[in-house]
């Protein structure tokens, strides 16, 4: 269960990101200054951006040219993780079948994960009738249902307050126990609490994972300037 970046280079206008590393199973934070390419890295893994050169491997299988929806990946964005015109149930159901033609067993699964994330009885609501924390729970319920082995988090909880964010990370740790996670964050505390290892993105390079604690205790100069 490893994600391999083999000699990857991604060029966009005057920006370039290089990655040549292996990410083992487990939970990883992705840290770096604004504009360093953290979100670009996630977009690359999710399949929204194609590398200019190099290959991306999951469990030894080349997924470089695989379309986003077929990858072994779930992703949560900073915003717009839910379709606002669909009900909570429909949003979650998309994790099973994107065309929402669910059979009875699948509908039961939807109800079950709804309970699991603490939203029993809210299935018929539209997202705008939910609080920010509840919306995050809906998105997590869909992740749970899709059950992809790799989860990418592009700061989906950044707009929540500290207590809610901690709650979401706890829920996440619970539902994504066997999932490999890449979590972009600006908050060193989140990285320490959630991710044993951290990928540093700096100077157009993705550095191999290092233990989070020592990295943050004794950061290299660029990261030190960013953390302040």
């Amino acid at each position, binding site marked *: 269960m490893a994600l391999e970046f083999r000699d990857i280079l991604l060029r966009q206008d005057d920006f370039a990101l290089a990655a040549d590393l292996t990410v083992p199973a487990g939970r990883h934070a992705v840290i770096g200054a604004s504009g360093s390419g953290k979100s670009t890295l996630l*977009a690359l893994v*999710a*399949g*929204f951006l194609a590398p200019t050169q190099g290959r991306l491997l999951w469990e030894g299988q080349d997924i470089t040219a695989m*379309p*986003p*929806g*077929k990858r072994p*990946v*779930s*992703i949560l*964005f900073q*915003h*717009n*993780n839910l*379709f606002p*015109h*669909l009900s909570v149930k*429909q949003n979650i159901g*998309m*994790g099973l079948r*994107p*065309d*929402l033609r669910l059979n009875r067993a699948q509908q039961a699964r939807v109800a079950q994960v709804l309970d699991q994330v603490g939203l029993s009885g809210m299935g018929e609501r539209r997202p705008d009738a939910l609080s920010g924390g509840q919306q995050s729970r809906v998105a997590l319920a869909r992740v749970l249902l*899709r059950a992809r082995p790799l989860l990418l988090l592009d700061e989906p909880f950044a707009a929540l307050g500290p207590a809610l964010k901690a709650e979401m990370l706890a829920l996440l740790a619970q539902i994504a126990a066997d999932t490999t996670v890449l979590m972009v964050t600006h908050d060193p505390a989140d990285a320490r609490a959630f991710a044993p290892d951290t990928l540093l993105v700096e100077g157009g390079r993705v550095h191999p994972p290092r233990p989070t604690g020592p990295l943050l205790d004794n950061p290299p100069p660029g990261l030190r300037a960013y953390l302040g």
Partner: protein
Amino acid sequence: MAAGLPLSIGHAIAALLAALILGTLATVVWIAGGLSGLTEWDLRAVWFTLWQAALSATLSAALAVPVARALARRRFRGRGLLVTLLGAPFILPVIVAVLGLIAIFGRNGVLNGALEAMGLPAIGIYGWQGVILAHVFFNVPLSVRLILQGWQAIPAERFRLAASLDFAPRDIARHLERPMLRGVLPGVWLAVFLVCLTSFTVALALGGGPRATTVELAIYQAFRFDFDLGRAAALGLVQIAICVGAALLAARIAIPAGFGAGLDAVGGPPAPGGWRRLADAAVIAAAAAFLLAPLISVTLAGLPRLTTLPPEVWQATRRSVLMAVISALLCAGAALALALTVARGGARWVEGAGMLPLIASPLVLGTGLFILLRGTVTPQQMALPVTALINAAMALPFALRALIPAARALQKDYGRLAASLDLRGWARLRLLVLPRLARPLGFGAGLAAALAMGDLGVITLFAGDNPTLPLMLYQLMNGYRMADAAACALLLMMISLALFWAFDRGGRHGA
């Protein structure tokens, strides 16, 4: 990949549209074979087309400024309704408005009655002054909406700053309002100018003769009265040149969009008291009366005869409604495919193809299609399909203007989410695209339906024994059956507005 299916449909429709417009125009140019066939009469038509459009635009913009200012700084009951009504002339059948204007300004109209009572000479509505009057009627409301947006685009903080600096109304005009107007008015003027360049129905009903014939009307006359296809095509060539020239002009000046949000922003300019208050009230009342009197007059005259209309009117109604619905579906379908392709970053020519109808006038297209299709089908057979097709094409740029930004927002906000969930093809259309784009789609379809319903342009070239409702109305007017004409006009107006309302409302509910 997700883009596969709709992408190819969008490209195919863009190619078909380009072939339709450019192929038809090329046919006209080829048949025309130059401008040598044109007479002095035709050159007068060119001259009239240009100066009436310029005068109509100037008058409309000038008259709209005080109305927009009054609406910007006053709040009163019914203001929202009035602002909404200002959008109505766009979907109002031209021939209905012409009938209403005749009822107010015509020989036996309300105005001349009043003039006669005061011992003043009567004014005539037939001739160039009637053409200008009708153009002003249609375009003052449009201009007011555009200029009102300009007023509301001035940040409220500016007006607060002006108040704290103790600006008099004169100072506000100088430092805030006039700079805004200098930015907005050229676009407004040009928008009206462009609309009036292809004026046909107004000139057909109120103009004619050597001093009030537009090029579009001259095409119709050459085609229909003289059966001179060569001259019709030569005139078509002139109209193409005028439209292309105008399009080049338009590319240099940004034309503001007349629809959309932002008409009820809070804040706005301060509302000075004293005589300005009275003046604003008078301006608003006059504008409302000018807009509503012709329509009320048609309604009052038409209501009593509505139930006793002859059966052929109802046949024409069925024909027109069917054609309008087909036109609406064609327009909405094409606009959706094009907008999705454009939003996905499709080639620039796709968007350009969608805007091509702007350089083609309905009568030029009609002439070209007639030339292309003659021999295979009779004019009567092509009348309805060609009218439906041309109206769909004419409404397409307006539908695209509403749809492309929405499609871009959809792609930006939910494109990646949909891709990551493997939401593709029909499921994507059903669960994401249609619900999110229902509003602009409904608006575009409603616009196409109303335009096709009220169209009295290309149908006049082909019409035989199967008239549409507007053509029926025109025939009744020409036969001086004014009571039946008024009832027919009322029916046409109600159906046009109802069609627009139904499609637009359908979109809002779906959203």
